[in-house]
């Protein structure tokens, strides 16, 4: 079978006094050549269509006609229906269907561009609102902890253990990998510089102190923000989208006690343990580089232990529960505030990670300032 070439689609406007005729010919197909239009379209609906030479057509033809009809001024009051004489029956039926309900001006959202002042005002208000929401959420968390302390908060203990496992044991592989590599990198960078002064051994001090004071806890917090903070937001957000939180409420459960409290507790409990673990793995990473550059592991270990006072060693661990609370609060808050759609859950997850990482870094700076003031 040979396929005959399609004649190209053409549209010809002809105006004769009041009468406007539109001659349509050729094959109107999406995959075919572009439409060649002859004459200018008048600002009136055609009174007559000539379709004798019209071949096959798909939706491009009614779309072309409808696009013209919709550029015309909206009819005011009751007007006779747009004439569609001369069109094939099926096409006339489709166009009548398309024209049956007039264009609804009210359905368009207000797209008036905002002035600069309005934009600034809106941004300020929304920042203020999210600040208030954060304070409100922290307040609720404190109240919820109070209920927990008095044994009045209700949540499923099994849920708590599962969360504990998710943000504890299951995070170990990624925490190991990242901390080990961080220790390795610190040792590499440090040993190159220290070698200039013949102070190779002090790489142990460098890696030990920086891991234990800052890098261990901050890297763990960032990993947990991306891993667990996001998971909290996505889980709670999709529960919200699926009305599961409403269902909790109507059974008399406080969604806050039920969902947020166990997550905050779990992360606050797990963060110090993960931090200690990350510190040790980071030091092992440094030890590997040390061994490669000729420092025996035993010597490296002795030097590390000698450089770490108990105060230094406890600083990172001291910060970790605060970071844990910040991450859990960011994740849960964004989840609880998520809208009721799958896109909203995605946005909530993104915001949760951004908020968590930002708050971890801000908190860490605050701690640094306080420790400096206290001369630790």
């Amino acid at each position, binding site marked *: 079978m040979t396929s005959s070439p399609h004649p190209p689609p053409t549209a010809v406007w002809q105006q004769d006094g009041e009468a406007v005729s539109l001659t349509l010919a050729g094959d109107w197909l999406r995959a075919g050549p572009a439409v060649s239009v002859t004459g200018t379209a008048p600002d009136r609906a055609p009174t007559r269509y000539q379709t004798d030479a019209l071949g096959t057509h798909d939706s491009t033809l009614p779309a072309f006609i409808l696009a013209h009809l919709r550029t015309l001024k909206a009819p005011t009051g009751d007007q006779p229906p747009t004439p569609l004489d001369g069109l094939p029956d099926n096409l006339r039926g489709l166009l009548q269907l398309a024209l049956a309900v007039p264009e609804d001006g009210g359905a368009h959202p207000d797209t008036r561009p905002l002035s600069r002042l309005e934009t600034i005002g809106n941004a300020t208000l929304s920042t203020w609102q999210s600040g208030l929401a954060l304070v409100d959420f922290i307040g609720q968390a404190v109240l919820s902890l109070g209920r927990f302390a008095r044994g009045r908060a209700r949540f499923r203990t099994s849920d708590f253990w599962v969360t504990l496992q998710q943000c504890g044991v299951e995070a170990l592989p990624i925490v190991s990998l990242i901390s080990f590599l961080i220790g390795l990198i610190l040792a590499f960078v440090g040993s190159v510089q220290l070698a200039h002064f013949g102070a190779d051994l002090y790489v142990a001090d460098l890696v030990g102190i920086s891991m234990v004071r800052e890098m261990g806890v901050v890297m763990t917090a960032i990993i947990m923000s991306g891993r667990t903070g996001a998971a909290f937001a996505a889980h709670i957000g999709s529960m919200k989208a699926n009305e*599961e939180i*409403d269902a909790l*409420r*109507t059974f008399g*459960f406080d969604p806050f006690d039920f969902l947020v409290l166990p997550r905050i507790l779990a992360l606050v409990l797990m963060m110090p343990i993960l931090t200690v673990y990350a510190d040790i793995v980071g030091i092992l990473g440094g030890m590997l580089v040390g061994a490669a550059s000729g420092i025996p592991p035993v010597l490296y270990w002795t030097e590390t232990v000698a450089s770490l006072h108990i105060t230094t060693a406890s600083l990172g661990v001291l910060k970790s529960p605060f970071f844990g609370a910040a991450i859990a609060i960011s994740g849960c808050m964004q989840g609880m505030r998520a809208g009721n759609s799958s896109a909203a859950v995605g946005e909530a997850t993104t915001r949760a990670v951004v908020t968590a990482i930002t708050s971890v870094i801000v908190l860490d700076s605050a701690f640094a300032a306080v420790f400096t003031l206290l001369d630790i």
Partner: protein
Amino acid sequence: MAAKITVQDLTMAYGDLVVMHDLNFEIQDKDIFVIMGGSGCGKSTLLRHLIGLREPAKGSILYDGKDFTATPLAERGPFFQRFGVMYQSAALWSSLTLAENISMPLEESCKLPPKTLRDLACYKLSLVGLSGYEDFYPSQISGGMKKRAGIARAMALDPDILFLDEPSSGLDPLSSRRLDDLILGLRDGQGSTIVIVTHELASIFSIANNAVFLDTATHTQGALGNPSELRDHSDNPAVRLFLNRGDTPPSSP
């Protein structure tokens, strides 16, 4: 004796946008009461007001003559104990099996041995025809089964009022019919009052004995009464149009 549920001068609004105003109706004991109306008219919003998930802009809702809307949130426990709610999406807790979905509210409301909890959950599931699915997760069952599991969970605490949000939407005609039979069976067997949000005409005529029609055009209740009578005798043309699927038979006096 006061009606089971009394809605007085209820106005519902999202911010400044008034969804419905001046709703007044009563739901009697053992009624199957339907809230009907076109899409987006505020049927589900009305249901959310009835169960306290939204606060009215004006007016009040009374249960057995006791004012629900005036009761502070912390003291609404006794009211909540009487409600069973099935949500539009069933809203089963996705991390729990069907049996756990039903036993969790029970577990938290009173201390029961695990065996009893399990038996209660199995019983509720068998009422809705889901025996043998106790250990399935919500994601493993079909839409119709989820709706039925949602009803089973709504009945967990033996509530005397069941609220069902679009129970038969998205179901094939046979499942939808079975669900109607189930609803009638529950009313007769347990003596529950049932409030249903729906726009499925077949269900409305076969199970409802009373209904309120929410009119999108006037933003208030268009009619109140038995749906079959409203279909033929309502003096509101919008109600007749709705209940006749857009056909307009002459109004018989």
